[in-house]
């Protein structure tokens, strides 16, 4: 069932390209504007790189979150799915996976370009790639939760940001700390371990919360 649902989500993403191209473009634009704004001094950029990359990643995922459930809520898919009950969890997992594949994974794949733009050295680049690989699934999981909670609200976008950004902060702190440590030649396995722990915890618990949020929103 999950595979059928995932295929559906990917077909939808292929037909509504703006949904995932917009956040990606936003990410690239922010990163290209930064060196122009703060000046091309390589040392300064290198110091700021971890924070810049992660803030841009976080905001671009947030941008993609708002529309996650909007259409399916409006046309009654979620209501009728909740009535049938069997499919809800598979639906949540498929949504999360599709969201990561369309917004998180492209960020990981863009990271070499980003490293070049910001003049990041090799050790920090590897750390950046690792944190993005471990951190973006968590961003997707949390944005699915936010979208599920706010899907029936009129001004869902503002509420979504207020709800989800505080949950992103631990991720931001540990991910940028890992890149910074790598840049100074220190070990960053501790930060990575915490990222993995947060990801596993979110993966185990958040889908349950999302499923209940969907039920609450249609009742």
């Amino acid at each position, binding site marked *: 069932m999950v595979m059928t649902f995932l295929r*559906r989500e990917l077909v939808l993403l292929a037909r509504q390209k703006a949904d995932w191209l917009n956040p990606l473009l936003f990410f690239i634009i922010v990163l290209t504007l930064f060196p122009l704004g703060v000046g091309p001094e390589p040392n300064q950029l290198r110091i700021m790189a971890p924070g810049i990359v992660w803030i841009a990643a976080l905001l671009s995922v947030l941008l993609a979150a708002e529309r996650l459930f909007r*259409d399916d809520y409006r*046309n009654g898919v979620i*209501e*009728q799915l909740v009535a*049938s*009950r069997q499919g809800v969890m598979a*639906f949540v997992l498929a949504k999360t996976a599709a969201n990561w594949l369309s917004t998180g994974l492209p960020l990981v794949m863009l990271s070499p370009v980003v490293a070049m733009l910001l003049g990041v050295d090799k050790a920090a680049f590897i750390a950046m790639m690792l944190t993005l690989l471990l951190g973006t699934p968590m961003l997707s999981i949390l944005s699915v939760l936010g979208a599920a909670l706010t899907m029936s609200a009129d001004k869902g976008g503002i509420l979504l940001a207020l709800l989800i950004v505080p949950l992103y902060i631990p991720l931001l702190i540990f991910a940028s700390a890992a890149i910074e440590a790598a840049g100074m030649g220190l070990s960053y396995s501790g930060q990575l371990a915490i990222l993995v722990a947060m990801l596993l915890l979110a993966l185990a618990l958040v889908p349950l919360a999302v499923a209940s949020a969907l039920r609450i929103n249609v*009742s």
Partner: protein
Amino acid sequence: MTDFFCARGLSCIRQDRVLFQGLDLELVPGQLLQVQGKNGAGKSSLLRLLAGLSTPDDGEILFQGLPLSQQLDQFSTSLCYIGHQSGIHEHLTALENLAFWRAAYELPYQDNLSLLGELGLAGLEDVPCRMLSAGQQRRVSLARLWLTQAPLWILDEPFTALDQHSIARLQQRFHQQLAAGGAIIVTTHQPLSVDFPSLKTLELAYRW
């Protein structure tokens, strides 16, 4: 089998307005219940209560003798609920929408193409549903009724936007379902054109 599906003393309050109060209903296999009433009388709210989507403000709903709240998972596998909205995504084709619902209901594989042809949608299988007319979208949405094996159907205004021919075909499908021992709860404004011997009507009065 008398206690297939029944509700006792149901009340529903929406935005400080009592829609209905102390409502009793009983449904046996092979029976069709038609809920009638003015716009805003609470038909859809009643259907959503009966489908287990929301909880009544008072009263209880029993399915096979047990309260709904105790066996939601089991009840929902016996239920096919199609609400006021179509439940189809307008950027997906008829076939893709059908494949989604077949997976959601965990139904075995069936030839969707011939089913869509039977419903007069031949040649439109690969067109995104937003290009279809309202009646054609409704037909895609109702195609699930030809797939499902659920004994209880709850349908909110299924005849909306359908042409005479499609209405007749849907009512034939109702006959099949009732003959197979299923039960149907339906809201509609039009009188049913085919004769149903087991028809029962429930009139919801509009209350201020």
